[in-house]
């Protein structure tokens, strides 16, 4: 009889962990609240730095867990814990008893409407990074004009912003902005692109190459300064204001499309899951690991582990590495190693 491992969240962290656990001889059970696996990554179009097609990546992963138990459109309703077991009641009426629960709930994309001054949801031409990816995936979006002359990308929307409730850097937005700017320039070669950044945090492998390419080959303009406010002029174009902090002068520009780089915040269900399993939550709203160095995957409860962005903003490789690592950790937990 294979041991059950309940994985809450069917994003890439949950899928990869399930795959590894399966290979190690366990019976992973994925509980996913959405109707499809893949989480945020499945919504994305292409992934840096190799410009892999997100759907293919997710597709390959779901194929690898084809025989795994997956409950879609399902949430955990309640948890009963005994000394060494957890019994999870799911919204589809199933009760599962397990020794190990793996939290892979991931993150939530910052609600850009909270940055009222940028006018997301108020102005016709303001979208988010997520909207743009979906549009590139073929979803029509009336906010994106047919042939924009000028496009702007606002970095750090809902990241590094105490007042927006997220003090942390979301890690991937700078690179996403550079990637999307290049993609947009390829689609609209006659357009001018502007990235409004505070710092460019291009820390990963090949990220800097993207930056140089964007500058040299695509002529993307990088303006150092956070956008302060956005207005709409009589033609419906956006009037964007920022300070050019390198020049120490205010700057304004009219744009046809503004893409807000919404950051990673904790998943909206975090507190609920935390309450059911009596898990600690950090002041950033993400699950709190035992420590942030050597025990990121450990929770304060015996038999409950974390993988991926549920403990903080992470890149895809980091998430996958964590998922693989946590599978081994669970294996050693079962075997009292």
């Amino acid at each position: 009889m294979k041991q059950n491992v309940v994985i809450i969240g069917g994003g890439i962290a949950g899928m990869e962990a399930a795959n590894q656990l399966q290979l190690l001889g366990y019976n992973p059970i994925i509980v996913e609240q959405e109707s499809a696996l893949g989480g945020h990554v499945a919504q994305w179009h292409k992934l840096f730095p190799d410009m892999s097609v997100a759907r293919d990546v997710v597709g390959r992963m779901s194929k690898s867990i084809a025989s795994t138990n997956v409950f879609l459109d399902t949430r955990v309703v309640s948890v009963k814990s005994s000394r060494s077991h957890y019994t999870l009641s799911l919204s589809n009426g199933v009760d599962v008893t397990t020794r190990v629960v793996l939290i892979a709930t991931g993150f939530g994309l910052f609600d850009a409407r909270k940055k009222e001054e940028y006018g997301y949801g108020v102005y016709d031409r303001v979208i988010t990074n997520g909207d743009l990816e979906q549009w590139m995936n073929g979803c029509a979006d009336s906010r994106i004009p047919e042939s924009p002359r000028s496009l702007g990308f606002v970095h750090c929307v809902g990241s590094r912003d105490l007042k927006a409730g997220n003090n942390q850097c979301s890690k991937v937005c700078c690179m996403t902005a550079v990637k999307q700017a290049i993609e947009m320039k390829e689609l609209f070669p006659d357009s001018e692109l502007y990235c409004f950044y505070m710092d460019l945090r291009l820390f990963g492998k090949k990220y800097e190459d993207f930056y140089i390419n964007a500058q040299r080959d695509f002529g993307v303009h990088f303006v150092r300064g956070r956008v302060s406010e956005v207005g709409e002029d009589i033609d419906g174009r956006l009037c964007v204001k920022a300070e050019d902090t390198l020049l120490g002068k205010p700057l304004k520009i009219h744009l046809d499309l503004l893409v807000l780089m919404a950051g990673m915040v904790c998943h909206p269900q975090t507190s609920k899951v935390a309450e059911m399993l009596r898990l600690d939550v950090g002041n950033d709203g993400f699950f709190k690991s035992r420590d942030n160095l050597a025990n990121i995957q450990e929770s304060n409860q015996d038999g409950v582990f974390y993988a991926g962005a549920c403990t903080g903003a992470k890149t895809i490789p980091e998430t996958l590495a964590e998922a693989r690592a946590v599978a081994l950790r669970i294996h050693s937990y079962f075997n009292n190693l």
Partner: protein
Amino acid sequence: MIYEGKKRIWSEYQKDIPDDHWYYVRSCIRQNFFPASERMFTEITRNVLGKDLYETPHHTTCGGIAYHCDTLPQETAMTIVARQFALMTEAGYENYVPSCITSFGNYAEILETWEEFPELEAKIRENLWKACRREFQKPKYLAHSSDLIFHWRDAIAAKAKHLLVNPHTGAPLRIVEHIGCHYAKMFPSKGEGGAEYPYVLAGMIESWGGEVVDYPERRHCCGYGFRQYHVKANRGYSISNTYKKFESMEPYHPDAIITNCPGCPYFLDRWQYVIAEQTGKTYGENGFGIPVLTYEELAGLVLGYDPWNLGLQLHQVAVEPLLDKMGVDYDPDAKYLGVNREDIMRPELPKSIRCY
């Protein structure tokens, strides 16, 4: 512009406003700038809507201008405010409504500060007691007088004689709303509709049939800024800000501007003349400027009061084009006649901007 998006934001910034029993405090400067406005407010609340509004002659300045000019320490300003609250407490009221935006901001800031630093509040209570042997309760509700008109906007609309609609064409008038900086920029939650897309004046315009003009520089300061205008050397800075606003709203051809701050209507009104003098540019039709009204004046016009009784002859920019568009009946010859049709003398009219 996605109207639904704005409505969603407005729904997030709603203030509890009691319907009756307000303690009213006037502004230091409004009575000189636009003398009928505060009079109109009391008229509407007491006589048109039949509400209880209390005023006391013992009320003084709130210290706001001096505080913002860095000529008054904060503790002194707080003690002055504490005295105002004491007067309210003594009068038996707990809903406080100032007429001035800077006062409103000042009160909001002080109440918020006391919330964060209770020991400071205790010290101010001690100061007040030492200074004038008074004690106070903090107001239960603080609202700006424009919040009240906003609150009663539908009641006013129900009694309206003239809507913000051109009776000849049936087209709604295009109105720019300008909110005083101290209304909600410090504490977005203290303003109706928040700071980014304030609803307080927009709501009035909508209720009274007009169309709100949303232009890129709507957030910008009118240019008054105490330290700018009051120091003559800085006045160029002051007018430059106003100029920026007018340049931004120009393509929309607004029919009028309404404001809820003591300084804004004054500067938006008077600077139009100076801009015309310096650049030869006017922003209204046919060489006129854009009429600038306080929300009380506009409410007065909507309710059918005589424009000259509302003191509109004291505006620099001629209001007649707006009156014509609203279909208000007025006697042009009575413009410079005072009470009992007494001649109050005609001012010298400028050449650069058309006036009557």
